[in-house]
């Protein structure tokens, strides 16, 4: 509902403005954002594969897939960091325009969700994985729930990408 409210804010700001910028026109990096979209999709696949590995009683493979998921999260944030740094270097801030305000709000909040997911995933990859020895079924369920959250983060980005980067301006 939080992102639902922000998407409705976007709709209201867009329809209420005389003009609206297109992402590419104001210098948003479409190739980098496309790579980031693919990185998040890969991370979603590796997340679900880590769960499937536990279902097949293979902890080693789980660790590999979960490690790749965390790595994808790091790559996503680094690319996002490059994008933000490029904007700041050119004097583009949230206060620059209505578009940039909603852009930084939505991508920033999404980035915080990515960081939150990475913290949980890192715990489940490291110290949290000890539970596999004592209660493997419960641990598998934990991975499934963590996966639901991570897929949600991917789901939000699937809509953020076209809305902020690709939709035509007016």
């Amino acid at each position, binding site marked *: *509902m939080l992102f639902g409210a922000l998407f409705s804010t976007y709709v209201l700001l867009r329809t209420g403005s005389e003009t609206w910028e297109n992402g590419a026109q104001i210098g948003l990096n479409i190739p980098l954002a496309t790579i980031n*979209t693919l990185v998040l999709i890969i991370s979603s696949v590796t997340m*679900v594969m880590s769960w499937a590995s536990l279902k*097949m009683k293979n902890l080693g493979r789980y660790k590999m897939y979960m490690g790749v998921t965390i790595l994808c999260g790091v790559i996503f944030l680094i690319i996002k960091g490059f994008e933000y740094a490029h904007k700041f270097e050119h004097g583009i801030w949230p206060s620059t325009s209505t578009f940039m305000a909603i852009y930084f709000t939505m991508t920033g909040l999404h980035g915080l969700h990515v960081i939150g997911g990475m913290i949980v995933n890192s715990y489940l990859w490291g110290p949290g994985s000890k539970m596999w020895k004592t209660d493997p079924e419960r641990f598998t369920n934990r991975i499934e729930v963590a996966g639901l959250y991570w*897929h949600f983060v991917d789901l939000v980005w699937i809509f953020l990408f*076209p809305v902020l980067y690709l939709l035509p301006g007016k």
Partner: protein
Amino acid sequence: MNDAHHEEVQSHVKTYIKVFAALAVGTIVTVLASNIHLGIILGIIVALLIATVKGSLVAAFFMHLSAERKTIYWVLVLTATFIVVMIGLIMFAREDQQGRQQGIFAVPQRHVPVATSE
């Protein structure tokens, strides 16, 4: 672990790979479609349609929604309805306000010219 269970999980894994391929293709198609000048309305519809298909794939297969009970579907339908109503109410309010400013709902005022005497 029995073989039947192992094969079932293996078949799930094959599905995940297919879904990943579909999502990757969908992403490329979205970017390519944005380079075609479809106009504002059609451009928005195409981009959001592809995003909805991609989002549905993630929810159905990665989040295992396709195997969930009907109750879960109804909760999701309710959530989606709330979002549509929330956005709709704001849009109606804005259109109403704009209509007043543009005179659509304004009461016409009769202009009475002042009589001038020579």
